[in-house]
């Protein structure tokens, strides 16, 4: 997709065409097929002129600003489009005296029981924080899909894939429940993380308490307290207690870092691969067991491979989509 721009742009470098070009780049960057070559082309375009840079900054800032539109969402039922039209009607009727937030309040009061499910997702390397009404927050890590279904009586979240960190305002009259791979995690006033991988669910408790059980809320029920790390695989559930430092390291992704402490090279590589499209492969089983220490930015694979080469004395070979580590 290096042909870049579908519109017929004049060669003249006026503000309109530069801005249109910047908008095009900015949107393309979000696409799944965004490649290294595209990135090089974008970098080259930005390097061409500061006019390109400021146009890009402008469209980026506007698009980020529009994130606040999501505040409209919590108060709007089901289908956004239809819902928004209803909202607009209300807006028109009341805006003069009450202002938007009041109107949102009214909309919420009118539709307290209608279930509305919203899907949130992040791409590989993505990171997103959402704030629910009532002030609870959910932070999505890389490559994650999560559905939120709220009504006046219940707050349900489905973690379909990936990892999320929850900071939940407890409300006894409106339980907060996370459904993940057939398990049910019920919040009792809490901060916790859940990671769902193939055949394995991991719950890390930071604060407060949660109830862990089967999806039907029956068997294998356990109450977790801060420091507990629960791992559920198939029918087996184990709980271990970890020190605060370990928990902080485990949640380093929230700050965009990976922390390794005598971590086996293969495990460290798996972590990096969660965040990056170019995959690392360890081609040697003895090398795979070598311990790694250190703190890395989730996307700074270069720093990691540099350490692997210089400290562990391993070979790193770039094969395009794959970077192979061998002895």
């Amino acid at each position: 997709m290096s042909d870049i721009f579908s519109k017929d742009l004049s060669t003249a470098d006026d503000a309109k065409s530069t801005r249109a070009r910047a908008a095009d780049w900015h949107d393309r960057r979000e696409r799944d097929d965004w490649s290294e070559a595209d990135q090089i082309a974008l970098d080259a375009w930005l390097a061409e002129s500061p006019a390109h840079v400021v146009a890009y900054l402008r469209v980026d800032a506007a698009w980020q600003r529009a994130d606040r539109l999501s505040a409209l969402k919590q108060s709007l039922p089901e289908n956004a489009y239809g819902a928004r039209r209803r909202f607009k009607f209300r807006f028109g009727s009341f805006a003069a005296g009450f202002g938007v937030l009041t109107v949102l309040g009214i909309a919420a009061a009118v539709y307290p029981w209608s279930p509305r499910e919203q899907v949130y997702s992040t791409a590989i390397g993505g990171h997103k924080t959402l704030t629910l009404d009532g002030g609870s927050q959910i932070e999505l890590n890389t490559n994650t899909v999560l559905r939120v279904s709220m009504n006046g009586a219940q707050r349900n979240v489905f973690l379909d894939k990936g990892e999320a960190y929850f900071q939940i305002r407890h409300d006894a009259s409106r339980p907060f429940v996370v459904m993940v791979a057939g398990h049910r995690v019920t919040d009792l006033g809490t901060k916790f993380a859940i990671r769902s991988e193939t055949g394995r669910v991991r719950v890390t408790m930071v604060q407060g308490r949660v109830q862990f059980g089967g999806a039907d809320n029956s068997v294998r029920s356990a109450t977790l307290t801060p420091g507990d790390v629960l791992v559920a695989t198939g029918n087996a559930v184990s709980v271990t207690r970890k020190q605060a430092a370990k928990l902080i390291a485990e949640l380093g992704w929230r700050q965009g870092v990976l922390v390794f402490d005598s971590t086996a090279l293969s495990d460290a590589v798996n972590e990096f691969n969660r965040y990056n499209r170019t995959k690392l492969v360890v081609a040697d089983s003895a090398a795979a067991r070598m311990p790694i220490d250190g703190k890395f930015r989730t996307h700074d694979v270069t720093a990691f491979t540099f350490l692997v080469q210089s400290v562990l004395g391993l070979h790193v070979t770039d094969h395009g989509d794959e970077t192979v580590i061998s002895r």
Partner: protein
Amino acid sequence: MAGTQDMECEEPGRLGVAVTASSVGIWFAREVLPLEGALMQFLRRSWRNRSDVEDLCQDVYVRVYEAAQKQIPEPVKPFVFATARNLLINRVRREQIVPIESIGDLGALDIAADEPGPDRNVMAREELRRLQAALDSLPPRCREAVILRKIDGLSRREIAVRMGISEDTVHRHLTDGRYALADLLYAGSSDMRWTS
């Protein structure tokens, strides 16, 4: 981009964040872009040929950005308007054909720079109203795509399915949406010609 209370959304994993994450880039987005409404007003008032105004604004941005790379100017607003003023004066000198009266109030321009900033401390409510108005100004299909992306958080593929269009068309709507939102949110209006 910290600071939004309602939702933070950053995707450090997406490549190409270097420019927007640089300190000058962050400064530019936070301090300079919000002045665009006042700057455009100033340029429109001071320059006869309205069709030049967007380009002039862009030129001011380039100069401010380049200056900021050496040193962040402080305070920002007088610097931006002084830059605009110098740019206009240079233009007049260069294009001697422009009659002097076309920039009649050039001498009195400092007053404009002293007007209160348009939206330095916009309340969340005001911001939301502004966003809502901007959203309402988009053409229907473009607006629908932006809503599905921004409010519902759907992926591009999901948007394509939902709207019954190709992903390329989704791209076109979202590109148009970005272009128009930047105009609407910063300049206060957009005269973009829709391609879709």
